[in-house]
C-alpha cells in the first residue's frame, strides 16, 4: 500500500507541490488563460510570453491539489524555450500518458520528467487534476482568453 501511494505521489511531485517553479504573475505576458475544475475547486492562471513561435517565458498562479499544482509547475519548466508546436505535441503525449493510452516504455521515456505522472492513469478521478494546467496552457496559446472548465 505504501508503495502505491509513493507511486502516485512521487518525490518530484511532492517537491514541485511544496516549491512550485515559475509560480508568479508574468508582467509582460502576451497570452493568458484561466483554468477551473469545479469538481474540486482547483483554479489556475497561466501566463505566457511568446516571441514569434517560441515560448520565451511561462508562469502560473492558483490553488489546487498536489497533482494539479506539481503538474502545472513541471509543465512550465518543460515548455519554456519550446516552440508552440512542440508544446502542443508534448501536451498531446502527456494527455495520452495520464489517460493510459501511451503504452510503450520508449514513448513514456520520451516525456522525460513528465513520465512521473503515469501513476495518475490508475486514478480516473485525478486525471483532470494532472491535465488542467495543460488544457489551460493550450487555451492561452490559442489566445482564447476563456475560462477553461474541465467538467
Amino acid at each position, binding site marked *: 500500500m505504501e508503495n502505491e*501511494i509513493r507511486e502516485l505521489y512521487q518525490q518530484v511531485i511532492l517537491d514541485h507541490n511544496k516549491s512550485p517553479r515559475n509560480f508568479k504573475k508574468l508582467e509582460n505576458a502576451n497570452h493568458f488563460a484561466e483554468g477551473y475544475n469545479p469538481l*474540486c475547486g482547483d483554479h489556475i492562471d497561466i501566463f505566457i510570453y511568446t516571441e514569434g513561435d517560441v515560448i520565451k517565458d511561462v508562469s502560473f498562479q492558483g*490553488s489546487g491539489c*498536489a497533482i494539479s499544482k506539481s503538474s502545472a509547475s513541471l509543465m512550465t519548466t518543460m515548455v519554456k524555450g519550446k516552440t508552440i508546436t512542440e508544446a502542443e505535441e508534448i501536451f498531446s503525449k502527456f494527455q495520452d500518458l495520464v489517460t493510459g493510452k501511451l503504452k510503450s516504455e520508449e514513448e513514456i521515456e520520451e516525456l522525460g520528467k513528465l513520465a512521473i505522472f503515469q501513476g495518475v492513469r490508475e486514478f480516473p478521478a485525478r486525471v483532470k487534476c494532472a491535465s488542467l494546467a495543460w488544457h489551460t496552457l493550450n487555451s492561452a496559446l490559442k489566445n482564447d482568453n476563456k475560462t477553461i472548465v474541465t467538467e
Partner: protein
Amino acid sequence: MYKTDNEIMSINEKVDYDIQKIRSDFPILSRPIHNKPLVYLDNAATTHKPKCVIDKVSEYYSELNSNIHRGVHYLSQKATVEYENAREKVLRFINASKLSEIIFTKGTTDSINLVANSFGRKFISKDDEIIISHMEHHSNIVPWQILCEEKGAKLKVIPIDDKGEIIYEEFEKLISTKTKLVSIVHISNSLGTINPVKEIIETAHSYGIPVLVDGAQGVQHLTVDVKELDCDFYVFSGHKLYGPTGIGILYGKQKILEQMPPYQGGGDMIASVTFEKTTYNSLPYKFEAGTPNIIGGIALGTAIDYMNSVRMEKISGYENSLTVYAANVFSNIEGLKIIGTSKNKAGIISFVLENIHPHDIGTILDFDGIAIRTGHHCTQPVMQRYGVPATARISLGMYNTKDEIDYTAAALKKVFEVFA
C-alpha cells in the same frame, strides 16, 4: 453515586445498540477495498442498503412487478397496495396526519423544484422575497434563483457565523411583509449544523410566511415530527435513508398543496381528460404524473421498517456519541482544522489539513479502504464563507464505529507523513 447522563447513555448503548448485528445487516460493509476492510464515511452523499432493502427490490421484480393504480389484475392490485403501504410508512415515520400530504418524488432536489415551480409560480411575484441561508446545498439555492429571475423576485440570504450557525437576529431583520417563503436546511451537509428549524418556523409563521425544511440530512439522524415542527413543507431523499436512489418525499400541508397547480402533466395526475378541459386528480396524485419509481417507494418503506426495528431514538443517540467521539479525536490531530463547530451538530465533520489539499487526503485515505468525500459538497457559498476551495468530510451513519474513527485518524497521520 448517581451516574451522569452520558454514562447512562453509554450503558444503554451497550445493552440496546447491537452494532455488530447492524453491521452484519449491510452486505457491502464486508467487502474489501484495496484489500482493506471498507470504512465508509460518506453517508451524507449516500448510505448503504440493508439486506432487507436489497432483497425487497429483487423480490418485487421476481414476484410483484406490475404497474400500479387502475389495474384490475392481481399483480397490479398487489403492487398498488404495497406502494400505498409504503406511503403510509413514510407518513408514520415523519408523523404526518394525512396520506394526501405525502408525495413521492425523485428525491430532495426534485421535491424542492416541485415547490419552486408550483408554489413559486402561483404565489411569488415581482419584488417578493424568498429567504434561504448561507449554508444551503445548491439544490436549495438554484431552483429559487431560477424562480426569482423569472418573476423579478429577490433571494435573501441569512448569514452564518464562524461556528457555522445562522445569525438569528439577521434572519429577524430580513423577514418582512415582502417575504413569501423561507426555505432552510435542517442539517447542513457540509458543516453538520443542526438548524433551529422550530424557532425559524415560529418566527416565519408569526408573519404568516410558510417554511420549507430541506431534510436531506435530517430524517436519517433525528426523529422528525412534521406536526410538532409545524413546517409547511419537509423534503428528503430515500437513498440517504438506507433506501434506494431515485425516490424521495415531499411532505406538504394539505391546505397549501390544494392551492398549488400541478407541477407536471401526464398520466395518474388526472381525474378526467377531454381536449377542452382536464380536471386534476386529488392529492397526492395531482403531483405524481407518470409511472412512478414503484420499487423505489416500496423499498423506501422497507428501509423505514428497518430503521424502526432499530428505533430512531437509539440511532440518534448512538450517532451522537460517535460524533462527539470523532470530533474529539479529530480536533486533537495537530494541523487539522474542523470547519463548522456549531453547538448542535449531527454526524458530519468537515475539515482541512494545513498545506494539504482535500483531494489528496481523499486519494490517500482511499488506499486504506476509507471512503470520504472531498470537494465543495455542492455548497460553494459555504466554501467561500470560510475561504477554502474545498474540505474533506466524514459523515457518519448508523453502522459506523469508534474503531473506524481511530483507524481514519491513524490514516490521516499517514497523509501528513507523505506530505512532510
